[in-house]
């Protein structure tokens, strides 16, 4: 039996949780929100050409693996990614790293993880976790969205690592190779914030950033006539799930980002960040309102002003308020 002394802390999003837990293991103590912020996690994009369960994808975060990549780099650590073709070899490599006493991060398909409650078992290939030990044929896993460490049988874990479909993990594993003792936290935070502002305001695509919200608003108000009432309701349901499902911390990561800004304020010594954190919380509330209206539409219990057009207006308001926040953030950092 191999068991690395690894501190598991629960978080609300898998990738930033994994990043924070792995870094903390090496003595770089940061919170989940901090990892999310430094890693430039916040984003928005509506991708009608990428389908999940035949419905368009809306994302509130950056690309998979990006948070971890950036946060470790900005804190001066070195990491290593390994990708595999053969499932057997990928498990051998994992065992080897564990024997060396290195906790290993994995990207997996949540559908195949037996410890997931049945209600959450959707095909979802972007779930991150840390393996920190092995007991016979079972692996000891720190899955950041669960309150306690869990166990998973080798065959199930192998299936999860080689899940297929969009964004297939392809057996990816990653671990920290080297930690630097000196890093500039304030500079890392500034970089993280600037990254978000740039991505949200200046991505040259109509479907991404604050422009993407407007784009979605334009599409959304035409859903009922284009797709029919039933299919339109399914599209709205998918939108809400992407925003509120396990992992986002609610409000499409906006609350998590507000927590990051609050934590960053004393480090940068700038009280304006606290004010911006409050504004970000307010947009989070607005996103939640969007989800509430959406849910009523899905259930067919919408009142007169709770329409697709109403949702589109809420979205446009989110876009407007957020762009003000990013503009001000750019001045601050």
């Amino acid at each position, binding site marked *: 039996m191999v068991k690395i002394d690894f501190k598991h802390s629960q978080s*609300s999003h898998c990738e930033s949780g994994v990043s924070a837990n792995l870094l903390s293991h090496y003595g770089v103590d940061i919170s989940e929100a901090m990892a999310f912020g430094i890693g430039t996690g916040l984003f928005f994009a509506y991708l009608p050409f990428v389908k999940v369960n035949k419905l368009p994808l809306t994302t509130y975060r950056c690309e998979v693996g990006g948070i971890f990549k950036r946060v470790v780099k900005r804190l001066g650590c070195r990491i290593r990614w390994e990708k595999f073709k053969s499932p057997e070899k990928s498990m051998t490599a994992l065992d080897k790293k564990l024997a060396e006493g290195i906790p290993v991060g994995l990207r997996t398909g949540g559908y195949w993880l037996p410890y997931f409650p049945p209600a959450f078992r959707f*095909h979802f290939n972007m779930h991150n976790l840390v393996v920190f030990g092995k007991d016979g044929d079972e692996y000891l896993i720190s899955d950041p969205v669960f309150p306690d460490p869990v166990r998973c049988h080798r065959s199930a874990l192998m299936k999860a690592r080689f899940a297929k479909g969009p964004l297939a993990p392809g057996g990816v594993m990653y671990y920290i190779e080297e930690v630097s003792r000196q890093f500039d936290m304030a500079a890392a935070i500034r970089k993280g914030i600037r990254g978000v502002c740039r991505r949200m305001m200046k991505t040259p695509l109509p479907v991404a950033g604050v422009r993407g919200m407007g784009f979605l608003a334009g599409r959304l108000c035409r859903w009922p006539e284009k797709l029919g009432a039933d299919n339109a309701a399914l599209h709205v349901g998918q939108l809400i*799930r992407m925003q509120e499902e396990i992992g986002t911390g*609610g409000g499409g990561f906006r609350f998590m980002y507000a927590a990051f800004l609050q934590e960053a304020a004393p480090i940068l010594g700038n009280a304006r960040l606290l004010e911006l954190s409050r504004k970000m919380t307010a947009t989070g509330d607005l996103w939640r309102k969007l989800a509430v209206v959406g849910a009523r539409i899905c259930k067919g219990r919408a009142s007169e002003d709770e329409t697709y057009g109403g949702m589109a207006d809420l979205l446009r308001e989110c876009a407007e308020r957020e762009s003000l926040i990013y503009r001000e953030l750019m001045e601050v950092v």
Partner: protein
Amino acid sequence: MIDNPDLKEICYALDENGCYVLAPSAGWEPKNVANDQAWALIGKQVANMVSRIRAGKLSPLAYHMAKHQMSAGLLAKYVGINRFRVWRHLKPSGFKRLTPEMRRRYADLFDLPVDALDVFPVSPEGED
């Protein structure tokens, strides 16, 4: 309604001083609505498959495929064959001609004993 005692999620909340803390989530109605909707859709797809199997149009493989929320394309990727071959196996005639090796691969994927591949619920509603 989703009741999940196994997974208590946590979320970001403001305490009385306006500071962010991580707190256990009390669950949230819109999220449950959206999840219920997704499960209802899967249930409908499974029931649809079962009635087509009963009508002799599809093979039991279609039931397992729908139950695991897969399309023919995704299933093909998992068992490592061309999707047109999966389409053939979804027809009763093609399913009958499956080689033992191919049956084993499907059964392994769905974590079933090989014989259980022929089993599907009697009525569309009688889904476990």
